[in-house]
């Protein structure tokens, strides 16, 4: 095995530097490539991402070292500059660190418990509306179905009922155009894909117009709403100033990007696994029924205690984590276990690989929703970890739980395709089930509630 100067094994099969090193194989299926890198090299594996040498770091200890390192040592903003044109200048990685921290605080305000208790019934109502015309039985593509549902739930929670119910195809199309420009290509050369990027910039500008209209309308009306838009409009920086309208648009796009497809895919995988394992689904359905029969509102305190459903979703996140490349740019030489990773390289963590470690997850290949949560908070990392852990993690869990609380109360599901379907594909940096993701549904014969 080849080693780099710092003694880190170098992954085999690289093309010459002019041909991009491992870049092409990486882009084909990042999770599969990183799995191969780990199997071949172990805890540390270096590869060539088309000119940027990248070190995959695997295992809770390595994850913790990265998550605990400051941004002036291993930097997320430096690694993710290709996201700046999507979210917009002045927010997140397009803002100075101190400003980004204050913006995270604003997101966190909008996701605090009392806010979440407002979002939960919205998500339930959207799901009820979704299934209202399903009839007694049928089949549909649930990858698309959940993507559609979650764009409604997220715009509803974010921008309020009025925006949601005037939601146009234009919004969805613009948003899709932005998404198409956020793939692994950006990790390599931000200027390489001019056409997609021109379309992206046009879409970003138009989205900002739509959101600005909404902000101006609300300012003029003097109305106060219980949604995230209101949180962003009311929020102030430490110096007392408010977010500019362009920054509000950025906050919204940021939130949607982080939460939309990731949640939709988690819902799709959860459904596929429920259909694959009817024996394991029984306990989840019983829990959903018990909550429904008690007639309580879906508030956080109730939903938090749905441990069977949570265990099932958490296991879906373990086996099929939506985001599989958590990247940081090394800005000061970074030492780990005697190896020096030099400034200018990237380090990468991969939940897909991490979640298949037998040392952390016994019988890692088995789907087991009763698996206890690992004691080490850096073993299971579907939302990342440390200060840069996804701020929406509790919202995401709430959202998927409420969706399934409604779905499983009314319908049962089975796989419609042959065994080989429902494969893990990665046309972008997000892992998703293959097309089409068809499941059959049938209305449940409910026992009478006591």
């Amino acid at each position, binding site marked *: 095995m080849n080693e780099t100067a710092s003694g880190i094994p170098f992954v085999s099969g690289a093309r010459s530097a002019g041909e991009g090193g491992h870049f092409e194989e990486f882009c084909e299926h990042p999770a599969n490539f990183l799995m191969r890198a780990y199997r071949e090299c172990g805890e540390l594996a270096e590869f060539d991402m088309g000119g940027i040498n990248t070190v995959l770091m695997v295992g809770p200890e390595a994850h913790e070292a990265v998550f*605990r390192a400051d941004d002036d040592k291993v930097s997320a903003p430096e690694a993710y500059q290709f996201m700046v044109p999507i979210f917009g200048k002045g927010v997140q990685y397009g803002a100075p660190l*101190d400003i980004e*921290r*204050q913006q*995270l*605080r604003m997101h*966190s305000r909008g*996701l*605090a*418990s009392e806010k979440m208790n407002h979002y939960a019934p919205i998500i339930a109502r959207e799901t009820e509306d979704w299934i209202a015309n399903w009839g007694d039985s049928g089949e549909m593509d649930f990858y698309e179905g959940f993507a559609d549902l979650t764009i409604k739930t997220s715009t509803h929670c974010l921008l309020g009922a009025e925006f949601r119910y005037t939601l146009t195809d234009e919004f969805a199309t613009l948003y899709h155009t932005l998404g198409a420009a956020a793939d692994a290509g950006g990790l390599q050369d931000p200027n390489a894909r001019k056409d997609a990027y021109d379309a992206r910039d046009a879409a970003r500008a138009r989205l900002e117009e739509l959101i600005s209209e909404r902000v101006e309308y609300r300012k003029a009306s003097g109305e106060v709403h219980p949604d995230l838009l209101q949180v962003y409009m009311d929020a102030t920086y*430490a110096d007392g100033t408010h977010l500019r309208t362009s920054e509000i648009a950025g906050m919204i796009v940021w939130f949607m990007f982080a939460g939309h497809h990731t949640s939709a895919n988690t819902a799709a995988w959860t459904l596929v696994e429920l259909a694959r394992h009817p024996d394991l689904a029984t306990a989840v359905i019983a829990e959903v029924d018990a909550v429904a029969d008690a007639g309580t509102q879906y508030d*956080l*305190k109730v939903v*938090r205690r749905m441990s069977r459903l949570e265990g099932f979703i958490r296991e879906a996140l373990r086996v099929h984590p939506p985001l599989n490349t958590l990247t940081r740019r090394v800005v000061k030489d970074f030492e780990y276990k005697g190896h020096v990773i030099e400034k200018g390289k990237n380090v990468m963590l991969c939940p897909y690989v991490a979640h298949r470690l037998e040392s952390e997850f016994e019988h890692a290949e088995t789907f087991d929703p009763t698996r206890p*949560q690992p004691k080490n*908070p850096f073993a299971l990392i579907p939302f990342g*970890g*440390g*200060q840069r*852990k996804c*701020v929406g*993690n*509790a919202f995401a*869990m709430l959202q998927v739980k409420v969706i399934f609380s409604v779905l499983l109360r009314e319908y049962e599901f089975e796989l419609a395709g042959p065994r080989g379907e429902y494969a893990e594909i990665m046309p972008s940096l997000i892992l998703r089930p293959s097309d089409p993701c068809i499941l059959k549904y049938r209305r449940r014969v409910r026992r009478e509630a006591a």
Partner: protein
Amino acid sequence: MPRYRVQVDLMLCQGHGVCKEECPEVFDVKDMKTGYPKVLVKERFPDESLMEKVQAAVDYCPNQTIKLIEVED
């Protein structure tokens, strides 16, 4: 009966406020001028009568921020 000390890892805390909701006697969430709000432990050695609620705060924290350490009397 063993006694417990509440220990938090502030680096992991994003101020979700679950702990405060589960056990306001022991936990508060403090707004920070910059960055996430952070958990504030009001009672490092919670009374035995609160342990069930403290345990719920530990179990439901989305970030596994809180630990209970057994201490010698």
